[in-house]
């Protein structure tokens, strides 16, 4: 069987699951079963794709049999396949966590009939973005996952969630419009949105026009990936959502933005001068994010800021624009998705046990919940980059790649990266020692001003400790185990990442499928020249003088 046939399934399975789950709104058990089944199937499909893309090279599915520049191409290379697999695993783990939470709380917080279908739609959107072979399909993938995330973020419609949701939604809308406008400009300038064809045609544009298109796309993706000047919205909006929702957002949504940046920078603008700018943006994101984290009193906020900060590492690897850099980014992105999600899940446990996520409140949990303390401690060391955990391996890879490049900017970034890794450890260790180590009862009770700010997480009335269902603890522990496995299987994983990095670095390798297909077409006398200007069977009016844009 041709493994390419599996590609559309990774979107279709969750979407079909969402439809079925929506059809049985009052049968919670059936909904859970459908959702678990769909995501389990996704994990299997993604695992097959990882294997197949490694053995057969880049997999391509031309939907409906329409050849590439005219039809929609779905492309999965090693990088995309690995991200699909990690996303599917994370989605599955977080789902079991939320099922555990829902069972324990009697679904008081999550309107069950909406949660599962929306969650599956989010899964479909994330997968769609990863397999998109053209910019417009990428846009549609973004929209699917964003609309699902709007619903998940405002779940229940309580005051704080509506407030946070409005910020998030308005920012996302603006970034979506910018993306759409950028697509329009790209189409106007080149007459195509297919990324493989774009990578051929973009060279014909003037340098200024290329730079303009690159920056336009970068701004749109930068908002989604939460790169420093565009990251202001993230720590505001993520922490108010239910714990599993925050966990899955933190793990996946920003990474989709990073994935889009990696794709455009490697495939469409491989020799862009923007990479130098990206390097500095990476440094700023690292520093500003972690300084924000140190200032926080609320663990969820603290983690949201570390999330922003560590986007800087991913951007760092992309900005290096070397095979090693991309290989390190690939490994780091896997590490970061898993560890960041795990930390947010542990915070969900802390919230249940301690009744609050404020460091001013929590205390003495080492004695009362030793397991949670361990579950927080391991990912904390991991994110802080302590050997032998995967954070260390990922950062070592990034720093090695940077040192190999050896430009002054790269050396600066190594310094900043090392410093930020220590600061991350400081911020998290502070949180750990306050929440777990400090004797109980030392925390301040809100008085005066804080008591007035009822809405603030620090000051909200402390809930009493609730039990932690085995399913929640189990899925969190499972994630911790997976994060440790990233170290145990670092050898094969790094080798895989290196193979992915080699493909990512070379635009020709990414578009080889397109060239092969074109050869086929020319042999069969299809008439498609693939040359610019001389256009083919359908009236794609590629405006030849597209450098003159009305904007």
């Amino acid at each position: 069987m041709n493994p390419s046939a599996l590609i559309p399934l990774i979107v279709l399975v969750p979407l079909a699951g969402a439809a079925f789950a929506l059809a049985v709104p009052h049968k919670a058990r059936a909904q859970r079963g459908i959702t678990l089944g769909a995501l389990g199937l996704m994990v299997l499909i993604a695992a097959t794709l990882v294997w197949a893309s490694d053995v057969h090279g880049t997999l391509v599915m031309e939907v409906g049999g329409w050849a590439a520049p005219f039809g929609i191409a779905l492309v999965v290379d090693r990088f995309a396949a690995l991200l699909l697999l990690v996303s599917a695993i994370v989605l599955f783990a977080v789902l079991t966590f939320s099922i555990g939470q829902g069972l324990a709380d009697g679904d008081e917080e999550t309107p069950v009939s909406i949660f599962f279908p929306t969650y599956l739609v989010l899964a479909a959107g994330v997968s769609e973005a990863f397999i998109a072979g053209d910019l417009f399909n990428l846009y549609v993938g973004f929209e699917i996952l964003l609309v699902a995330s709007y619903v998940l973020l405002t779940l229940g419609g309580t005051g704080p969630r509506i407030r946070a949701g409005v910020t998030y939604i308005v920012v996302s809308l603006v970034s979506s419009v910018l993306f759409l406008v950028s697509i329009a400009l790209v189409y106007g300038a080149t007459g195509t949105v297919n990324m493989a064809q774009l990578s051929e045609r973009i060279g014909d544009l003037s340098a200024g026009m290329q730079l303009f298109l690159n920056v336009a796309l970068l701004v749109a993706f930068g908002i989604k990936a939460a790169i420093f000047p565009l990251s202001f919205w993230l720590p505001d909006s993520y922490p108010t959502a239910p714990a599993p929702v925050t966990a899955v957002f933190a793990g996946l949504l920003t990474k989709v933005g990073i994935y889009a940046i990696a794709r455009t920078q490697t495939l469409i603008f491989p020799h862009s001068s923007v990479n130098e700018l990206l390097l500095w943006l990476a440094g700023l994101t690292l520093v500003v994010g972690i300084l924000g984290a140190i200032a926080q009193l609320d663990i969820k906020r603290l983690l949201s800021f570390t999330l922003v900060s560590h986007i800087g590492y991913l951007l760092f690897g992309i900005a290096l624009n070397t095979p090693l850099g991309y290989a390190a980014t690939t490994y780091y992105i896997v590490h970061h998705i898993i560890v960041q999600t795990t930390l947010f899940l542990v915070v969900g446990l802390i919230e249940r046990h301690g009744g609050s996520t404020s460091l001013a409140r929590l205390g003495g949990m080492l004695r009362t919940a030793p397991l949670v303390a361990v579950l927080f401690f391991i990912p904390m060391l991991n994110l802080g980059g302590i050997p032998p955990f995967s954070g260390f391996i990922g950062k070592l890879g990034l720093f090695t790649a940077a040192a190999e490049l050896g430009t002054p900017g790269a050396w600066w970034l190594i310094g900043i990266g090392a410093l930020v890794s220590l600061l991350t450890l400081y911020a998290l260790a502070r949180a750990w020692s306050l929440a777990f180590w400090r004797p109980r009862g030392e925390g301040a009770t809100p008085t005066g001003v804080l008591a007035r700010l009822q809405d603030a997480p620090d000051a909200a009335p402390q809930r009493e400790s609730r039990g932690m269902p085995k399913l929640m603890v189990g899925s969190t522990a499972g994630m911790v185990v997976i994060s440790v496995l990233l170290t145990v299987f670092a050898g094969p994983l790094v080798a895989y990442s290196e193979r992915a990095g080699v493909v990512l670095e070379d635009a020709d390798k990414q578009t080889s499928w397109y060239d092969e297909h074109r050869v086929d077409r020319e042999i069969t006398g299809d008439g498609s020249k693939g040359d610019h200007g001389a256009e083919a069977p359908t009236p794609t009016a590629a405006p030849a003088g597209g450098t003159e844009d009305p904007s």
Partner: protein
Amino acid sequence: MTVPLILVIAMVVLFACGFTLMLDRGLTRILLGFLLVGNGANLMIFLMSGTFGHAPIAGESTPEEMSDPLPQAFILTSIVITFGVSAFLLALIYRSWRLDREEVDVVSDDAHDLELAQTAGLPLEEFTDAELTESSDFDDDGGDSAAAPVPHDGPQPDGGRR
């Protein structure tokens, strides 16, 4: 390619008005702004189809005379997405309005931001009651209602953003 100036002007006006409206605090205005911006983007995609011609239907005219159908497909998709998002925004606005009727439907301040901005220094291990009551920024606000993250008279709406 040539583009009609009138459409370009219409697009610019849509974008300008739309983004101006989106900068407002009123949620309904944000929605209206989003609709305008969405239409501006659609118009822009349409302009990118280059020279305009006959309807791109097979058999109606020769391919040379047809308009480019692809931007029209893009616009159709984006209209559907805009429609769905607008419906969601309307529901959100209604919910927001239901939550606090006495206030208008505006973007509210982030209480945690306010708190962080107004707390002097980093209150951590030294997070004591005495320190909190000392911070003078707070007393100016007056302690109106306990539950209000946004003071009704809105003394400093930008206070939370540093």
